[in-house]
């Protein structure tokens, strides 16, 4: 249940709403148990239900934000392969040790600030260990879009954490000592 709660929290950004989402998710899952296909990971199935519950609630409350639609042709390899943060920190911290200095709350906040379409795929992949195929099912997007969103989301997140590390003095800009 922790995983569903965490996902609900990332979806809604509110603890109260996340708790309601968890309850509704489990109720729907329980009622639809005969539709669960063995072989599908239960966690992934619950995330799909949770996202559907969330979307339905959001539609109902007229707070529907347009989900960015990306095309399936959006090949992550067509995007620059350069990792800007890696390039910026290469001289003094090539292995990204500065990530270890960043407090957990700050990492959590940086994830929260990502645009939704990036935040959810990063959470499902890096925090919940879903495969690209499972994420595609939960999010109802093509696998190619999962890859490109992951690529962009991770890069954005690295950028935010790097800026924070600079601000806190965990790392200095290239050339400074």
């Amino acid at each position: 249940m922790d995983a569903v709660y965490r996902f609900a929290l990332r979806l809604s950004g509110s603890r109260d709403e996340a708790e309601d989402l968890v309850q509704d998710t489990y109720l729907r899952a329980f009622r639809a148990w005969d539709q669960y296909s063995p072989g599908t990971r239960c966690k992934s199935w619950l995330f799909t239900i949770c996202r559907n519950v969330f979307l339905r609630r959001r539609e109902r409350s007229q707070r529907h934000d347009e989900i960015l639609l990306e095309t399936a042709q959006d090949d992550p390899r067509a995007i620059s392969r350069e990792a800007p943060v890696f390039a910026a920190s290469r001289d003094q911290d090539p292995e990204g040790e500065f990530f270890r200095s960043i407090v957990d709350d700050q990492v959590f906040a940086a994830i929260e600030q990502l645009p939704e379409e990036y935040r959810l795929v990063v959470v499902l992949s890096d925090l919940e260990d879903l495969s690209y195929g499972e994420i595609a099912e939960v999010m109802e997007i093509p696998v190619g879009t999962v890859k490109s969103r992951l690529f962009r989301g991770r890069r954005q997140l690295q950028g935010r954490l790097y800026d924070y590390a600079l601000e806190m003095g965990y790392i200095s800009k290239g050339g400074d000592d």
Partner: protein
Amino acid sequence: MAFFDSLKRLFGGTGKNGRSGDEAPSGGSGSPSDADVAMIPCDEACARLFEYLDGELEGVSEEEVRRHLEVCKACNPRIQFEKHFREALQRSQEGGRVSESLRERVLQALAEDEGLD
């Protein structure tokens, strides 16, 4: 319907995917020497970095990418960089647990729902 079996399945955790990056690049003792390895170019290895770490490589063997990242001094820091990044994300996750009151609330709702049928 087996009420408790269903609950157990719904509440129970499931195993995670095996992710290549969790084991690599550590350099197995039985690895062939550098000379034996037909190295893929840095560009190709770095383009596959996320897929490699995510255990999702297609079209190129995991072994080819792993060997490159182990051996190549220019690319090896890249994978360490991405791993440290991912560790930071995973650390931030540790506090996200449901309260006992929510757990009870959900169980109560499920039991009531079952009672209505």
